């Protein structure tokens, strides 16, 4: 019995799960505190969870460059994970900042909201740092389950319920495929540890054309492609984003998507590097489909929230281009792009949060007429975020796209790059249209001058700084991204 404990303990390496550990602790602590506080008080939750994030961030930063492994290869807190952790932290932080007043406005000042976000972040971290299929799978589930809840958080609003339920059903459905894939891979290689799988596949060339391997590969990918909303597994995205609380939509588009990419990329690199030609070919097609569908449908949207949902599909497509490139710059470009996208998209959503009225039925293009002049700050911020989403220099979006397409070109996928830029040309149209309404149209009804909640403004400002910083001096972050990839 003792030796069992010893075996158990010698595998334990807390440093390897420190960030997620801290977050979960804060989450649980928060849950406890909530018990003793009257309902409807949330301000403390904001502060505590922010502190939690900051602390985690601190440890992530200090841990940078000192990869930690533990729980015999169930988890690895290497730079790759660290980089993604930073993305998650930013995503969570910005979301939390913009949420508080929003929740009060919409009439759901429920403090469990914040622990759930923290758990989601922790789950994302496990996905990013997991090196065992089980870790990744469970991380994914933690993340998804809390997201199901958050998406359907507004119990009283049928749209929110619908979003939650749709997300849940489809999510569970895709989980089925994911699991089947994992099962097959397990069957083929006899292990659930990514590195072992990779080595085993590489060692036995006969496995590479074993239908089970290939089927496993595809089914496995499906689970992640669903989370990153790649066509044809994207269809939940617009509905869920539209129905879910706006901050949650923002969060989903940044954090969990990045997490899915993190796990997906790690699995592909660790397990299936010997099948690279196959899966790059698959992703080539998916990337093109995703970009085209996302951008084209976005053109026909009039609800800005929904439009941003489609645009996030398109952006997933761009990110996939980075994966197709499958070279150093492509991958680091992908990491960089995820960070950039976190800033610009959450920023855009934050503006929506502040622009919306209760019920958010005014988040349409018409509703935005003359917005830029009535609410100058938000207008300018939105403009910058939109230009960044378009990929115009000097903005994070541009640098990100640049690196990704550069990767594609270096890898020889010229046509992919061309298709990509043509797609962003298409995307110009609908982003520009928002500006057309914001600035070129006269306001339909007069905005009362509401005072902007400080927290949300801070989140916008941070996002702005992030966008501009990554746009004007992308060098340093890109360096980190380069160090982050395997």
């Amino acid at each position: 019995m003792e030796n069992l404990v010893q075996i158990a303990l010698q595998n334990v390496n807390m440093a390897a799960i420190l960030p997620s550990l801290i977050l979960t602790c804060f989450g649980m602590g928060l849950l406890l505190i909530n018990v003793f506080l009257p309902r409807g008080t949330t301000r403390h939750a904001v502060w505590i969870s922010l502190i939690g994030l900051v602390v985690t961030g601190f440890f992530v930063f200090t841990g940078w460059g000192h990869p930690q492994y533990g729980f015999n290869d169930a988890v690895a807190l290497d730079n790759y994970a660290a980089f993604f952790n930073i993305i998650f932290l930013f995503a969570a932080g910005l979301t939390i900042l913009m949420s508080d007043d929003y929740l009060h406005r919409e009439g759901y000042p429920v403090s469990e909201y914040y622990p759930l976000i923290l758990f989601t972040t922790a789950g994302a971290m496990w996905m990013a740092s997991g090196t065992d299929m089980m870790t990744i799978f469970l991380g994914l589930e933690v993340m998804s389950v809390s997201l199901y809840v958050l998406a359907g958080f507004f119990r009283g609003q049928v749209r929110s319920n619908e979003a939650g339920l749709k997300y849940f059903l489809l999510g569970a459905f895709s989980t089925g495929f994911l699991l089947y894939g994992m099962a097959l891979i397990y069957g083929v290689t006899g292990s659930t540890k990514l590195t072992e799988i990779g080595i085993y596949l590489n060692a036995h060339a006969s496995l590479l054309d074993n239908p089970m391997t290939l089927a496993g590969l595809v089914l496995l990918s499906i689970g992640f492609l669903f989370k990153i909303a790649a066509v044809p597994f994207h269809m939940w995205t617009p509905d869920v984003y539209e129905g879910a609380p706006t901050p949650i939509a923002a969060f989903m588009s940044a954090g969990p998507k990045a997490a899915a990419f993190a796990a997906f990329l790690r699995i592909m690199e660790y397990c299936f590097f010997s099948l690279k030609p196959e899966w790059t070919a698959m992703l080539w097609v998916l990337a093109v489909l995703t970009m085209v569908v996302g951008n084209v449908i976005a053109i026909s949207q009039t609800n800005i929230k929904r439009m941003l949902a489609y645009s996030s599909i398109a952006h997933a497509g761009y990110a996939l281009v980075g994966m197709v490139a499958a070279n150093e710059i492509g991958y680091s470009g992908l990491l960089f792009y995820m960070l950039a996208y976190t800033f610009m998209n959450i920023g855009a959503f934050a503006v929506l949060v502040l622009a919306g009225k209760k019920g958010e039925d005014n988040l349409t293009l018409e509703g935005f007429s003359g917005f830029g002049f009535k609410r100058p700050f938000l207008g300018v911020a939105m403009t910058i975020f939109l230009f960044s989403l378009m990929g115009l220099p000097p903005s994070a979006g541009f640098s990100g796209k640049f690196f990704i397409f550069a990767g594609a070109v270096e890898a020889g996928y010229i046509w992919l790059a061309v298709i990509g830029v043509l797609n962003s040309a298409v995307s110009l149209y609908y982003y520009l249209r928002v500006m057309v309404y914001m600035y070129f149209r006269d306001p339909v009804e007069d905005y009362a001058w509401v005072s902007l909640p400080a927290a949300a403004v801070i989140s916008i400002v941070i996002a702005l700084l992030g966008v501009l910083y990554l746009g004007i001096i992308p060098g340093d972050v890109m360096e980190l991204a380069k160090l982050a990839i395997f």
Partner: protein
Amino acid sequence: MISVYHYMTVAGILFAMGTYGVLTRRNAIVIFMCIELMLNSVNLTFIALSNHLQSMDGQIFVFFVMTVAAAEAAVGLALMITFYRNRESIDVDDMNLLKL
């Protein structure tokens, strides 16, 4: 002698049936059950494999799949209840406010 493939075949059939159910039934709860069916077929595959490969990992995996199933059941059913409260129905065809 029963080979692992027998079990996997059965599992496969169940998986396909599960999908069919998901695609055809309109009662959210039934759909959820069909999903459970799929998950179980995967479980069967896992255990068959782990037995064949003489390793525990598969079974542990199944263990976690069950946990997940339980968790999802809790949350999913809660979601259905809330939806039911607002729509007086858990017919998935009534989840049609968000579209286009």
